């Protein structure tokens, strides 16, 4: 006998499949994107900046070797800081995150209220799943 102690809540938050009458409501995992720039703590900020300029997002996410989210480097900050400094020195630690099962309608409402264009998505262990663009979520719900 085994006990999946973290339970259904954990399973849903990982975006894993379920069955049932409400098996697939609009949720973050439907529109999350994995093409955000990521970097290590020791990466040179100047190098990260170049990759951010070429990406569809205006920021980079700092992750550990196990892809745990550690911080964020905003494009505006990257433009102003010493390009030879490290990601660890310039990052904003511990950005707010949502889970893969976050209700998409409620999420879009919150993002609109706060005038935010993106949400960072992680699993319950803090591992980066990707980034959600508000415009993608709105298009999905339309």
């Amino acid at each position, binding site marked *: *006998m*085994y*006990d*999946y*102690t*973290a*339970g*259904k*809540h*954990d*399973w*849903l938050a*990982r975006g*894993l*499949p*379920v*069955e*049932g*009458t*409400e*098996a697939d409501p609009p949720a973050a995992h439907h529109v999350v994107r994995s093409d955000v720039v990521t970097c290590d703590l020791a990466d040179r900020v100047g190098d990260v900046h170049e990759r951010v300029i070429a990406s569809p997002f205006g920021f980079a996410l700092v992750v550990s070797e196990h892809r745990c989210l550690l911080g964020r480097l905003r494009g505006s900050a990257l433009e102003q800081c010493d390009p030879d400094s490290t990601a660890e020195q310039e990052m904003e630690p511990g950005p707010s995150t949502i889970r893969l099962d976050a209700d998409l309608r409620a999420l879009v409402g919150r993002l609109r209220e706060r005038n935010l264009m993106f949400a960072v998505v992680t699993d319950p262990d803090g591992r980066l799943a990707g980034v959600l663009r508000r415009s993608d979520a709105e298009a999905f719900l339309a």
Partner: protein
Amino acid sequence: MASPINAARVRELVDRGARLLEVLPRGEYEEQHLPGAVGIPLKKLDAAAVASLDRGGPVIVYCWDSI
């Protein structure tokens, strides 16, 4: 005594034939449950109900969370 496991281990065991048992109320089970899980609400978990499970292999029990 049940052994605590995580999501990754659940998937491994299910791939090897383990049965899933959700003990939440019926309505919650019907809305969403892990694929292939049987639903027996905790209040109705008696010997007869458990006998309906395949006793030949491991059973994984889960609720909403650990609280």
